[in-house]
């Protein structure tokens, strides 16, 4: 097995969602916390892509922010190349080796800066280059790498379309010469034909530069296209984790099956299906036992009582009592 770049060990993250102090005292309510990420473990090998997929509120974006140190874990530990992330981030030399691409290319670029300054910011911040000419040359090179022209550096973000802006975000993320990129829904704000351009670009860059990706998305087809390994999240937990092909070919967890069944697909012309009922419950007050049990067709008493642990099935880890007991049809 190749070298592990990022290693998350039983990571949890809580958020305080209590009402303001005075209101709480008056109405005698206790503090309330929301566990956005609950005991999540995964490892990403160098040069590969791990994708996390799930619906709104499943905690996938929180994991993305934990992975680059924008949030500190409430429990567990994240290690970057073997070092605890907090220690790694204290060293500029390690910090520049991780970067992030955000979802909304309209909000993540400063509208008052020229593109060349946006792309050069990490270079300046980390002091990678100091000579003006060298920085200009490097920015031109980065813009070319993402399919823009060096002359585009003179323009402002509003002069670009959504797809071009996302290219600028990618150029900026690459400017600190990172090895590990966290991509939080990088194409969900884009049209499909532009999405294809960006996904192809990201795969090309990965091959050329040996990048390691943590890829977050709600779109299973995009995830299938991009990932080597795949984690399916539900209410803060990873319910199934394994090689992408294995998970897609034989989805084991009932939630993974639900997701795969629910997606409208081009190959489904004229076919009908039975949609699964129910909605994702509130993470503030999650169901007991396995949090998926209220929507699960295979739920029994044990599922309502006991939180399932991960068990190994082939190369895939699954957190489900029914799968463990072989109750799945």
């Amino acid at each position, binding site marked *: 097995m190749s070298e592990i770049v990022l290693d998350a060990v039983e990571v949890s993250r809580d958020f305080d969602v209590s009402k303001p102090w005075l209101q709480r005292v008056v109405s005698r309510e206790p503090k309330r916390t929301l566990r956005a990420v609950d005991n999540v473990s995964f490892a990403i090998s160098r040069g590969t892509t791990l994708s996390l997929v799930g619906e709104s509120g499943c905690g996938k974006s929180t994991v993305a922010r934990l992975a680059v140190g924008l949030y500190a874990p409430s429990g567990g530990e994240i290690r970057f190349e073997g070092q605890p992330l907090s220690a790694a981030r204290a060293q500029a030399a390690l910090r520049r080796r991780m970067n992030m691409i955000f979802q909304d290319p309209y909000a993540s670029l400063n509208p008052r800066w020229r593109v060349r300054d946006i792309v050069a910011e990490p270079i300046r911040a980390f002091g990678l280059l100091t000579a003006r000419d060298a920085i200009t040359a490097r920015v031109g090179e980065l813009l070319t790498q993402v399919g823009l022209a060096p002359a585009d550096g003179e323009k402002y973000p509003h002069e670009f379309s959504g797809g071009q802006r996302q290219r600028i975000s990618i150029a900026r993320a690459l400017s600190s010469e990172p090895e590990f990129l966290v991509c939080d829904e990088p194409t969900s704000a884009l049209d499909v034909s532009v999405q294809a351009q960006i996904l192809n670009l990201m795969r090309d860059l990965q091959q050329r530069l040996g990048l390691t990706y943590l890829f977050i998305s709600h779109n299973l087809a995009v995830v299938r296209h991009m990932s080597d390994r795949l984690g399916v999240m539900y209410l803060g937990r990873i319910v199934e984790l394994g090689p992408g092909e294995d998970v897609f070919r034989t989805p084991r967890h009932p939630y993974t099956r639900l997701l795969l069944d629910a997606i409208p697909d*081009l*190959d489904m012309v004229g076919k009908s299906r039975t949609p699964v009922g129910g909605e994702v419950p509130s993470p503030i007050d999650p169901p007991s036992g396995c949090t998926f049990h209220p929507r699960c067709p295979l739920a029994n008493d044990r599922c309502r009582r006991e939180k399932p642990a991960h068990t190994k099935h082939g190369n895939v880890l699954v957190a489900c009592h029914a799968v463990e007991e072989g109750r799945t049809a």
Partner: protein
Amino acid sequence: MPLLEVQNLTVEFPTRRGVLRALDGISFDINAGEVLGVVGESGAGKSLTGAAIIGLLEPPGRVAGGQILLNGSRIDNLSRDKLRPIRGKQIGAIFQDPLTTLNPLYSVGRQLVETIQTHLKLSDRDARERAVQWLEEVGIPAARQRIDAYPHEFSGGMRQRVVIALALCAEPRLVIADEPTTALDVSIQAQIIALLRGLTRDHGTSVMLVTHDMGVIAETADRVAVMYAGRIAEIGPVRDVVKHPAHPYTEGLMGSIPSLEHRVERLRQIDGAMPRLTAIPRGCAFNPRCPKVFDRCRNDRPELMEAGVTRAACWLYARGAAHV
């Protein structure tokens, strides 16, 4: 006779720098009980088409040419007062965001009763009974208990169900659904699509389903119109458009969608981006991005023409063209 006929519809926006033509002579029909999907990328004009049909174009946008006929009579030149009873009674609308469609200050029951009584002669009690029936029909559990709840007390999926009930409760002949599932999670999206399809089939309602999601169209629509830069690039039965696209743009669009069934090394991509309205190229609007472009495409604008089973606005299918 088709239920809805759109003929040569042109929508323009006068601006300081000249008139922008957002829809340029589009024509299509929707038959009774049919689901027509309208797809395209942002700015292609798909939502605008829906807005023009229900007479909800935002000023300064205006219908500059063509006509819209519902049951054979024109509705594009009606005054506001004459259009109002048609909107709701004849044509219902479902928009993307259920939170902004519902009035947060009124209970869902009151909104339903108001809509029902505006269009149908029913007593307060009968209207309320009808409202409960509709909530049950769209799958709201314990509808009788929840009818007096406010929109914020419902989840996103439940709210969209209420919006569907509102759109259908006056039993319109045609529903315009503009991105009805885009704001929802996938597992909820499947429920809403199934619901919309089932209800419109039961009531014989025609649907114009506007979305950017080809998957949703593939599963829901009977026919599909693919829009590009304010025109229809291709229109035809959904199966043929998806499996055997005729227009090079449709072909590129289908190829750029990652599939769940099989993984490819590289997605097909269409280089470049859709032109802005201020810079629509001469000839076919797609010609600068088209892999099959030839001389005629750069000069003449193609109209929809027969292209096998579908109709495509592409010179490849001109009679006597040697390029096919």
